[in-house]
């Protein structure tokens, strides 16, 4: 008998819901309009990351709307209209009604997941691998959790008006602060922290993790667990507080139950803030989104890396990889669903590789505090990969992971051998020649104060006038024997100028008579091959990493053009160079 009541009630609630145009509007039509607006207008079509974000966003609209308005306000309306009163005289408990509300919310929501995924795939060419089962689990648990929060709202309010107010009070911040409608990283840090106490943030990060990073439901078990807990608590509380008639008023203190259901999220939020896990995840998701932007670089003179030149060509980048290299004319960016970068009169080449970087000074007990800005300095200067010397603390390895995942922006960190780097730039600094400090190169990224302090240190430092001449002679010797090493700026030796030192190194090689073409090859394809990454790095070739550099002018004539950087792409992400320089300078360097 009991089960029959559940079945009958679920069946009728589903029917009624499907007959309700308002429900259909809020569940399908409104999210669909947003979806199309983002898909057509805001560039989601040219970036699978932005498309993933759009899918997550419209799913969040659906979950929050179904929860707060479908669940909460609907139940209050039925009570106000005297509908629930009619059921009160039947021998049933509130449970079938509440369970039916959960099930209906879920059943109405679920098709929208498929709708938006299919649209993304077939209409906008979204091609991310998808763990559908995990996505369904996380969003289903989400819709049930939010629906039961809605039912609690209905349980603790005394009128439609009150339920509208409370639903709005929860809906708006959850939509705005969860990252669904507005990217979280633009908020001040305290607000980002606060956001982690909102259930919607967990759901959004879970959905995004699955869509963007290929995570599973199990990877998001903390979020899934807290939502399940909230659902169970919501169901129990709303059965306990259930009122069939509008005349039965509830005491104001009962509204505290609403706070009660938030408890799992307060706990998980506190834990996440403490651990920093979500902040990390937010940064990674943001980076993944940037990396997934599709680009079409057109009309460039292309240095392929191995020595081949294309006088006029184009490169299509998708999901961080070079998808296609065009010789001559290229299609319109729109035709290939990419954003265009016009590179007429400019040179496109693989980003540079610095083959000898010491991230940890020998004997240091702790990694340097400014390691993140060191790494950002490399990408600022168009260095897409560095070969780091091994360190006993495994710092290089640790940061390799962070950069790969996207938590930190930086060049790809390749393992290096225990060989002291050979570097003219370092030898020059040793000899007391500090021209690099006066070059525009360094000034762009480092503050004047910092450079002056380095110059002052140079004045006091003992000089080894012979150091440079010896190194230069060695380079000429190697060149003559055809054994050109992979170049390394070695951060300018004691100067520690990570980034510009490599450019200085190449400039010095040119000065010592190495032809520009050889230098470019040595700093790209050759360096990649020596670091064991020749099959995916250091060339402008289909299937290779989209870690590229666009410079003004022709570095074949003068390698100093490498310092006139137009665009740096690292794994498909267009680096915001100005932002990185500002960050570095404001940190006092």
């Amino acid at each position, binding site marked *: 008998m009991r089960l029959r009541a559940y079945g009958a009630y679920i069946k009728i609630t589903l029917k009624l819901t499907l007959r309700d145009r308002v429900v259909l509007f809020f569940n399908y039509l409104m999210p669909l309009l947003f979806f199309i607006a983002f898909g057509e207008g805001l560039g989601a079509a040219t970036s699978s990351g932005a498309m993933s974000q759009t899918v997550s966003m419209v799913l969040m609209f659906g979950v929050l709307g179904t929860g707060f308005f479908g669940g909460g306000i609907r139940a209050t309306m039925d009570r106000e*209209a005297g509908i629930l009163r*009619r059921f009160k005289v039947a021998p049933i408990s509130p449970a079938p009604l509440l369970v039916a509300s959960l099930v209906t919310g879920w059943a109405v929501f679920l098709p929208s997941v498929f709708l938006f995924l299919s649209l993304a795939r077939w209409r906008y060419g979204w091609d991310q691998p998808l763990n559908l089962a995990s996505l369904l689990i996380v969003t289903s648990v989400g819709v049930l959790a939010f629906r039961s929060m809605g039912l609690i709202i209905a349980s603790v309010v005394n009128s439609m008006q009150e339920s509208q107010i409370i639903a709005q009070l929860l809906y708006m911040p959850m939509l705005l602060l969860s990252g669904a409608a507005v990217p979280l990283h633009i908020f001040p840090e305290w607000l980002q922290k606060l956001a982690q106490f909102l259930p919607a943030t967990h759901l959004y990060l879970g959905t995004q993790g699955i869509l963007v990073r290929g995570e599973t439901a199990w990877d998001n078990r903390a979020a899934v667990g807290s939502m399940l807990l909230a659902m169970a608590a919501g169901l129990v509380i709303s059965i306990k507080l259930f009122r069939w008639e509008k005349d039965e008023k509830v005491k104001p203190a009962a509204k505290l139950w609403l706070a009660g259901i938030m408890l799992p999220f307060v706990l998980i939020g506190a834990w996440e803030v403490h651990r920093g896990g979500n902040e990390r995840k937010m940064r990674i998701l943001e980076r993944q989104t940037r990396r997934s932007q599709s680009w079409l670089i057109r009309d460039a003179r292309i240095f392929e890396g191995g020595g081949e030149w294309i006088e006029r060509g184009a490169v299509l980048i998708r999901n961080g990889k070079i998808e296609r290299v065009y010789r001559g004319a290229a299609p319109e960016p729109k035709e290939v669903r990419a954003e265009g970068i016009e590179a007429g009169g400019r040179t496109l080449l693989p980003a540079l590789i610095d083959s000898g970087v010491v991230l940890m000074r020998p004997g240091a007990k702790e990694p340097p505090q400014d390691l993140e800005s060191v790494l950002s300095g490399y990408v600022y200067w168009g260095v897409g990969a560095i070969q780091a010397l091994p360190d006993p603390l495994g710092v290089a390895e640790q940061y390799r992971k962070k950069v790969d995942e996207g938590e930190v922006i930086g060049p790809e960190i390749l393992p290096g051998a225990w060989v002291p780097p050979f570097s003219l730039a370092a030898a020059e600094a040793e000899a007391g020649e500090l021209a690099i400090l006066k070059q525009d190169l360094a000034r762009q990224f480092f503050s004047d104060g910092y450079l002056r302090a380095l110059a002052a240190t140079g004045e006091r430092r003992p000089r080894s006038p012979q150091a440079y001449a010896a190194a230069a002679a060695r380079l000429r010797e190697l060149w003559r024997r055809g054994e050109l090493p992979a170049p390394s700026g070695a951060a300018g030796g004691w100067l520690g100028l990570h980034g510009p030192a490599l450019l200085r190194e190449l400039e010095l090689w040119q000065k010592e008579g190495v032809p520009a073409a050889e230098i470019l090859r040595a700093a790209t394809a050759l360096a990649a091959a020596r670091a064991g990454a020749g099959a995916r790095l250091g060339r402008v070739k289909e299937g290779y990493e989209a870690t590229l550099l666009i410079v003004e002018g022709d570095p074949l004539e003068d390698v100093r053009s490498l310092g006139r950087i137009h665009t740096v792409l690292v794994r498909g992400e267009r680096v915001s160079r100005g932002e990185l320089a500002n960050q570095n300078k404001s940190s006092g360097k």
Partner: protein
Amino acid sequence: MAIPAAIHASGLRKLYGDFEAVRGIDFEVAEGEIFGLLGPNGAGKTTTVEILEGLRQRSAGEVSVLGCDPEKETDAVKDRIGVALQSTNLPDKIRVREAAELFAAFYTRSVDVDALLRRLQLWEKRNAYYSTLSGGQKQRLALALALVNDPELVFLDEPTTGLDPQVRLEIHTLIGKLREQRKTVLLTTHYIEEAERLCDRVAIIDEGRIVAMGAPRELQDRVLGHARVEVKTAAPMPEELPEAWREGVATSFSDGRKMLYASAEKPARVVVELVKWLEAAGVEIEDLHIRRPTLEDVFLELTGKSLRE
């Protein structure tokens, strides 16, 4: 052994805070009986009924419905009774038949839904949305839902309030059919005619107390053993009243002695004397009625106020 009463209530009280809505009510409803609770709005009828239906808790007293305590064996009672509430609603977009089928699923026992809809003249409307039904159709559906579990006892709370007279008659006919099926019915109403017409017995309830109880006719007789003769004449009536009226007949005049009200236990005899008296005086009769007291009069007599207030 006597047949147990379908409803038994004694010393029933209900307090809402300081306000005592029901102040000690005793009554019994026998099986197969149609029993009316008659009283103005706010008299405590609905509270009493909802306690019996298991929807509210009583503050004091003994109650048994179909041999069960509705407060303790709530679901058992709900499963065996049928209820048409005074003011309820159904979702706008539920179809008539869906509503009946939904409610049928809530009970251990249920009748054939299609037959029920036919019996209540709802078959034509079986696929109509609730929101498109007329007031009478909605009330018929409410009755259908109250009968869907083939209840032993039916509660009808103000079943015709707000309906027009024609529709009210229809509903009365349907309730009359329940009598044929030997259902026990507890009906609340503030319509006198309804109680007079439908009920075997009536309890008149006011300010939380039963002020009188019995068959409608019996109540009328007991409370006001008199019928009233009303006569209207063209000219004023004579000063001198008939000799026989000195005892047992109460009179009052109005409209310049052109209107007379005379109440007595034997109204027919009063009429004979009245006609003789007026003929002797040469006064022409324009109009003449014998009026039995209505429950309205009974109520007025007992409580000093009108039901319709």
